């Protein structure tokens, strides 16, 4: 087991009150496995990612839970140790390449700084000039790997001189240059147009296979999950409601929310009527008691309104719903 998140509870302190962003998130990720984390906006996907990196904003607090990465609880590490983990073992690729590169520094500066602080080989060099040169070579090599045209020229450019796809490839190259064990791709392709999205996903897939990396692929696009992941986890209102093999989750969904999501997905292979999920996402300042989905669920029973459903194993998928487990 490379990453194991257990009962993670995160709260945000805002003027409106306490936002219960994560209410007991649990999932596991094996080495070499690609896990897709899906859910609508506000379901806590990105908060989960930021919690693993320990980069939550100042008004957020991890109330309880465990994030065990390679046998170490990340929540108990010192800031300095966590910085090393961030640079060298867990890399993140963020949502919008346009805003995630510093506008006033050349790509070269940003890339080389990352290498100089994290690459063990380059860090060990005494000679600063030599380190710069080797870092530059390594950056060029990594950019070639992500199929960047004219990498030497790109390094001398500023972010605004690159297209969105190129920027995302720069970020990919930076992330993979650190030879991490885990990649968190937080909506990494959402801001790109479809063809570029396909290219970037293809590059990510290749690199993942080559190094046998674990990837946490966060997206709201179930199609991206179907094509790239082995496992899928569906989040709702700060909780994983269903997790399992991607085929099982997407073909025979168990949780009423997952079923609803799939019914709302347009299909190209057959004519089906699209059905939306009634109601809206609950307000996480005042979340409903019991199962967070009970207000919108067609099968809601009395117990759903009072008690949070535990996880049960149903045909290979883990589901948090009272419809299963013989109750």
């Amino acid at each position: 087991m490379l990453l194991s998140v257990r009962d993670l509870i995160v709260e945000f302190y805002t003027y409106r009150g306490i936002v219960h962003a994560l209410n007991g998130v649990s999932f596991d990720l094996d080495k070499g496995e690609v896990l897709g984390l899906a859910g609508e906006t506000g379901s806590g996907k990105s908060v989960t990612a930021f919690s693993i990196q320990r980069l939550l904003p100042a008004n957020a607090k991890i109330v309880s839970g465990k994030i065990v990465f390679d046998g170490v609880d990340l929540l108990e590490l010192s800031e300095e140790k966590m910085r090393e983990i961030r640079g060298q073992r867990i890399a993140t690729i963020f949502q919008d390449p346009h805003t995630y590169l510093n506008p006033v520094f050349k790509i070269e500066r940003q890339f080389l700084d990352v290498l100089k602080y994290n690459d063990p080989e380059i860090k060990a060099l005494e000679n600063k000039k030599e380190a710069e040169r080797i870092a530059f070579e390594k950056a060029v090599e990594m950019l070639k790997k992500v199929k960047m045209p004219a990498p030497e020229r790109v390094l001398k450019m500023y972010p605004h001189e690159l297209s969105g796809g190129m920027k995302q490839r720069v970020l990919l190259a930076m992330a993979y240059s650190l030879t991490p064990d885990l990649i968190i791709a937080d909506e990494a392709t959402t801001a790109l147009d479809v063809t570029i999205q396909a290219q970037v996903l293809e590059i990510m897939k290749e690199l993942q296979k080559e190094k046998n990396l674990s990837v946490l692929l966060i997206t709201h696009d179930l199609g991206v999950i179907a094509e790239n992941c082995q496992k899928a986890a569906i989040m709702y209102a700060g909780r994983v409601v269903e997790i399992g093999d991607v085929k099982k989750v997407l073909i025979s969904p168990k949780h009423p929310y997952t079923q609803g999501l799939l019914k709302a997905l347009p299909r190209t292979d057959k004519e089906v009527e699209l059905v939306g999920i009634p109601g809206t996402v609950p307000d996480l300042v005042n979340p409903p008691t019991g199962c967070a989905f009970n207000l919108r669920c067609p099968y809601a029973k009395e117990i759903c309104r009072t008690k949070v459903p535990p996880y049960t194993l149903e045909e290979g998928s883990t589901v948090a719903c009272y419809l299963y487990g013989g109750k």
Partner: protein
Amino acid sequence: MKLYEYSIRRIFLLIFVLLGVTILTFYLSRIVLNPLGAYVTERTRPEAIPAIEKRLGLDKPFYIQYIIYLQDLVTFNWGWSRVAHMPVIEALFYRFPATVELAIASFIIIILVGVPLGIISALKNNSVVDHAIRIFSLTGISIPVFWLALTLQYSFSYLPKVAGLPSLPSNGRVDALLYQQYPVNRITGLMIFDSLIQGNFIIASDALLHLILPAMTLAFLSIGAVTRVARSSMLEVLRQDYISTARAYGLPERMVIYKYALKNAMIPVTTLSGLLFGGLLAGAIITESIFAFPGMGQLTVFAISSNDSYTIMAFTVLASFIYVLINLLVDIVYAKLDPRIKY
């Protein structure tokens, strides 16, 4: 377009801005003031006045007078300053360097104090330190200049002197007696600079002491503004996505803040400090008057209170020239800081 082409174009445009300024000042000064005042006193015989008018071109139509004025302007024939008892150009020649010296001194204080305070305030957002700094900067913005100047004079000059302690000088640019003893040859007119390159450290340190109180007064008024802008832009930058990237890719916090965030946060501060510096160079009227500092501001006060039209006009034109020039400089620095800006 290349930066230098842009600069040349801007300098070309500057001519038109200055033409506009001269039309305005000329028009206003001829309405409000009578330029004859500089050349006529109570002892002038009435029959001599038409001759003076003729010599100054005051008998000609308005637009001809304006052209004469422009001619005089470019040939540095800026008229007679009644308050300085010398040609205006000469008076400015003596007084402008004093103002420059004061402006540089207070600008250094503003930047060295204002920017770090703003950054500390942003990093310790909403803590006791942050509140203390915000109160301090608000005080600076809202305090009246004359009150601050007098209070500083009282507490650092008068009180220690009465108590027999070492005190700071409260007026003038240099101790006159000391200056007689160790004269300095005028090279640039910047007293500290001139005396330093002539190896005259006694005058240099005395002039520096004389600068402290007026420079502190002027600086305190603007530190608040710089602090607030530095604070808010730093807070803004720290919320940006690329700061998350820097942290997520394992860069040390120190580097994230002082390299990756700071350069971005300094962009708005540059604009503000450019404008502040322009304002300082145009002369600090109240501060220079209270500290009897022989700069342009003091001269202007004298000129205004005795309707000295030539001095007032010269000051206005010079001040606007400085403002436009500083603005150009700010734009150039801007392009250096932010590569997205292309001219």
